[in-house]
Structures are given as C-alpha cells and as structure tokens.
C-alpha cells in the first residue's frame, strides 16, 4: 500500500485526513466498482484523497479497518446478508453503490415470478440457493445512496470528496428532463421514443437522452415526481402501458408505482 497513508493531504489549502475506504460486491455485474478504474484521467488524484484498503477485484490482501464501505449489488442469498451485517458493524459510513444496492436493480426483475419457477427455468432440477433480490436497506441501515446503472464516476468522486472534506451531500431534486433541456437536446418524445426523463431523479446529466436513448429510470423517482402527468404524456404519444411498465420496473426504483399501475390495469 502507499506509504504515505497517514500523511494529511491538502484540499484547497485545507488539510484533510485520508479516510480508509473499502469496496464490496454482492450480486452484481461489478460494473460500478469498475467505473472507478474507468476514470483514467482523475483516478490518481482520487487515490490521493482516500486510502483504499480493500478492493478485491483490483487488489490482493487488504485490511478490515475501513471507515467508509461502498457496497455494490443486491442481496440474493443468506450468506450475503451475513457479509453485509459484518460490513455494517465495521463501517462508520455504509454507502449503497448503484441501482442494485439502492433498489435491487435489474436483479429484482426475477421477483416478478415464483422463485421455484425461476430456479427451474435456469438450473432445472439442480439444487441452487437463491432468494428474491432485495436492496441493502432491507437488511441494514444505509447512510448514503449513490444512484445509477451504472453509477456516474464523476458523481462518486464528488460525493466521496464531499465526505472527506465534511461537506453536506446534496442530490438534485429535479428530474432528468431538466438536465436534458439544459443540454439543448431534442426531446425524445418528438423523435418518437419513450422516456422516463420527466420523473427520474437527475444527477446523471441526462446520460442516455444525450445519446438519443430514452431514460429507463435507473436512478429512481425525482422528489415530487408527477407520475400521473408522465402517464398522460405516454398515452398522448401512443406508448403502451406495457412499454411504460417495462421501463419503470427495470431497475426497481419505481417499485411502488409499478405495483399501483399493475393493480389498476391488471398488467402481466
């Protein structure tokens, strides 16, 4: 490990102590952790700010004396509950990293079906241990959520930097639509594409709409999201309720809204 671990660092002339950070993964694609390695241009500066003591995907060994734990993935097996409880007991601050950890992510799509059928469909009669996919907060207290599938690396770095220097963590309370408009994009509804931008929490800088791909709501609902109005827009534009539900339920952030829609419309 870097030998300067205990040396105080300066941020804008103010000395800060490098906190010990650990990365963990439950059921996931491990993509959110990899996003950290994917930020080639600022990775080294980021590593100067924190001391990474555990990151299994990138390093051997590692310590258990971490203060901040960033946990990726959803809980789908009892041994993961045990691991998560141990992490919670050690960490001063437990951060849910990405949509799987925050809402269950794509993994929770299997919860639409009876578990026995799910197991048989993939493993036949072979014994396999699995439970419905759940977010971390169903099992332990989560101090902070970093949304997205994948997380936006710039946002992770900003949030961790804010934590290190003791700033309050602020999320935008407006929807993706605002960021998309600010970026001067052509509205996807005008291009005939469905989009959850009007109801989804911003902070991704309209990542998908910038590429003319409609939003799938991976960051969950914005504060005071007006779902009724969005449904009205979707109806007006001729998008089926199935299309809307496909998007709303993809990452688990709109679970209660989807349950209400299903109950009202009798969809699948």
């Amino acid at each position, binding site marked *: *490990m870097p030998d300067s671990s205990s040396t105080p660092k300066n941020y804008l002339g103010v000395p800060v102590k490098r906190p010990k950070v650990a990365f963990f993964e439950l059921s996931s694609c*491990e*993509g959110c952790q990899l996003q950290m390695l994917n930020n080639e241009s600022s990775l080294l500066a980021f590593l100067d700010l924190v001391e990474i003591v555990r990151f299994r995907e990138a390093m051997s060994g590692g310590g258990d004396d971490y203060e901040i734990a960033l946990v990726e993935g959803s809980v789908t097996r009892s041994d993961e509950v045990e691991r998560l409880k141990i992490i919670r007991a050690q960490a001063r601050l437990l951060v849910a990293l990405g949509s799987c950890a925050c809402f269950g992510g794509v993994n929770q*799509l*299997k919860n639409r079906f009876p578990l026995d059928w799910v197991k048989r469909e*993939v493993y036949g009669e072979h014994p396999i241990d699995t439970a419905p*996919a759940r977010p971390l907060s169903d099992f332990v207290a989560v101090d902070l959520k970093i949304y997205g599938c994948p997380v936006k690396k710039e946002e992770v770095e900003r949030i961790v930097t804010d934590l290190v220097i003791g700033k309050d963590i602020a999320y935008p309370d407006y929807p993706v639509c605002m960021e998309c408009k600010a970026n001067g994009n052509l509205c996807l509804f005008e291009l005939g594409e469905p989009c959850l931008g009007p109801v989804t929490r911003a902070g991704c800088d309209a990542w998908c709409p*910038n590429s*003319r791909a409609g939003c799938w709501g991976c960051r969950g609902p914005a504060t005071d999201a007006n779902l009724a109005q969005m449904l009205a827009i979707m109806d007006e534009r001729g998008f089926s309720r199935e299309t809307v539900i*496909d998007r709303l339920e993809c990452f688990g952030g709109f679970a209660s809204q989807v349950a209400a829609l299903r109950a009202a419309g009798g969809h699948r």
Partner: protein
Amino acid sequence: MKVDCDISVRHLTRVEGHGNIRIRIEDGELREALWEVVETPRFFEAMLVGKRWDNAPWICGRICGICSIGHTLASIRGVENAFGIIPSLQTARLRLLLKHMETLQSHVLHLFFLVAPDFLGEASVLPLIRSRPEVVALAAGLKGLANDLCDEVGGRRLHPTRTVVGGFTMLPDRRRLSGFRARLLEAAEGLKQAAAIFKGFRLPDFVRETEFVSLKGEGEYPFIGGSLISSDGVTRPEPDYRLMTNEYLVLQSTSKWSKLSRDSFAVGALARVNNNFRLLRPEARELAREFGLVPVCHNPYLNNIAQLVECLHVTGDAIRLLDELLGSAWEQPRLEVTPQAGRGVGAVEVPRGILYHAYEFDEVGRIVSCDCVIPTSQNHANIQHDLTALARQSARQGLGDREIERLAEMLVRAYDPCISCSVH
C-alpha cells in the same frame, strides 16, 4: 523431495467475481485440487421471459461490468437474426470498432491491473503508481483511449446507450472521430512498450494438451458472428452452438460447465490466436512469434500474451475501420424493426471467448425463452483440469506452499475469468 501442502484461497483476488481454490498434497501425492465457483446467480434467462424484444440488449448488457458491450452486441445479433434483420455496412463497421475498443480496454485492464502485479511482486497496481509510474501511465493511457472511443461510438463505456436492434440511436461526431486516429497510432507505439515490459516477465512453464474453440475467421480475424471451429477439427454453424457448449451442472460450481470432444475445452484469446493465426495483422503475428506463441500453443499462461497480440491487432484494425467510416458519408443510423415469431442466435467473440445469446420470440416479439452461454462457463472445466495437472506437476517438483499457491492463482488469472458473468 516429498511435500505436504494445504492451500485454501477464498474469494480469489484480481479476478472478476467470486471463486475459491483448494489444493491438498500429502507426502508428495496430490489429494485434491479444486476450482470452486461460489458466485450468486442472478437469473437473467428467467427475468427476460415475457419482456418485449427491445428489453433484451438493455437488460442483458448488464450481465457483465467488463464486457457489457459484447453482451449488448450478442443480444442485438440474436434479436436481429430472429427477425431477419441484416445490419448495414456502416452499422457493422461501427459495431466492430466498438467491439475492438472493448477488447483493448478489457485486455489492458487484465494485463496491467490484474496480471502484472504478480510478475512485479506486488499485491495490486496501487504500489506500482509509485514504484513503476511509467507502467501505470502507459496502461492508463491505452485504457483511456479505448474507453473514450467506446464513449464516442457507443455513447457510454459501460452499459452502452446508443447500441440498439437495427443499428445506433445516434452516430459519432465526425470531427471527434477523426481525432482518434492519432491516438490509435500512439497506442500502437505504446503497445510495443507494453510488449517490452512483458518480455521481462518469466511466464510459468506448464503445458497441458487442450482443445481450443473459437469462432472461425472467414477472410478476417473473427469477432462478430459466424461458425465455430475447434483445434480438434470440429466446426458448427452459429445456430447450432448447443452442440458445442453442451452445458451441464456440477456441484462445485454455481456456473454451468461445458465439453466438446474431450473432458473440457478452452476459449478466449489463446484459442482465437491458435485457430486464426494467419488472419492476424502482420505486426500482431510478428509479436506473437517474438514470444514463441505459434499455433497450437498449449500453455494456458500464454493467454496473457495472446491478449497482448490481440491488443495490437485490434488497434491496427480500428485505424482501418476509422478510415473506412470517415471515407464514406453517414447513412441512416438505424433500420426499422418488425418483430416476428422465431428463434435467433448471436455469437460474439468477447475478450474471454465465444459468447452466445439465443432468444425465442412469439409473434409480437415477446421473449418466450432465452439462453446465454458465457465464455468463462465454457472455461471452468478446463481451469479445473489445468489446476489438477499443475498441482500434480508442482507436487512432483517439490515446490513449496507459497509457490504452488502463486502458480495456481496466476493460472486462474491467466484465463481472465469473468465469474459473475459466468453465473449470471
């Protein structure tokens, strides 16, 4: 010398996902050598049932955080084959360019961040930031280029946004795209430095005769679509992949296993190089020869070198694709999609080997069933057989615990396993 050895590695580090190694040697005799996969399954094949076709690439790309582009492209190809859609030449070029940059990104990540620390005697790449800054800067530069070009073509380096059935939602900016030419030329030079670094590493001397399976290149080195070929002489058309992958279940693994002509086979960079050597670009072939990598090479540790050779190949080929794309005017980014009932299979050579996505659709394009066969699943049985042979050879040579553990870990790492992918 008779040795006793008891090795248990829980959650092997510097690999994607969760796997364990156990080796027990008593009085010079191998008692047990086990490669266990303990990853939690996520059941992608079940979660897609009942969903419409356009959900497939979006959801399936999320099987893997390293090769999300490969999964997205295999999924798209499966859907397009089911609906009888043939992508335009422009789309095919853009997809291959995107694929090449994922290959470069993934191979560089593996070679420098996961493998190199073993040869430089470190636990991770982090200490190398201070001790070998030039190595880390080289790797970050190569990986950064590949990722930036993925952003430009696919919209995003991880879980791409622009790649859809029928083509792309949006085309790259021509001016920015042309700016990548100089960076690719620079990367080709950087890879020569990388080769010089790897020439300084002593790769373990271990050989076990293996059947190698890859896509079969027709005129060019294979990446997207086509028949498969094995070094034992088997060929199969794309839709008949199940006759090759023959998945079966074992108790030591939550991932399925595969076999073809023998008890196991290997896929990945070494298999591709072994089976398609003459289709590599000349400079890549030359580099392979410099490392003594000529077909058929049966040393699994040389998969690392095969990856390096492919890095040089895809970088050169990316320049060709860039020139072809910039040499023609943009056409429509995507084709109209009309769903129809039927079955479609998509094969893509992802960094770790052949990936298959297969879907069956009803007449409105809803998914009736889905099958994804992951390269690392195909490799698990071969890793197990290699591990047994390696442990036996090490016992005969009287190596100590730490050396056997190091060799075993390096063996598994050489396959660059993507374990969460293999369990999906």
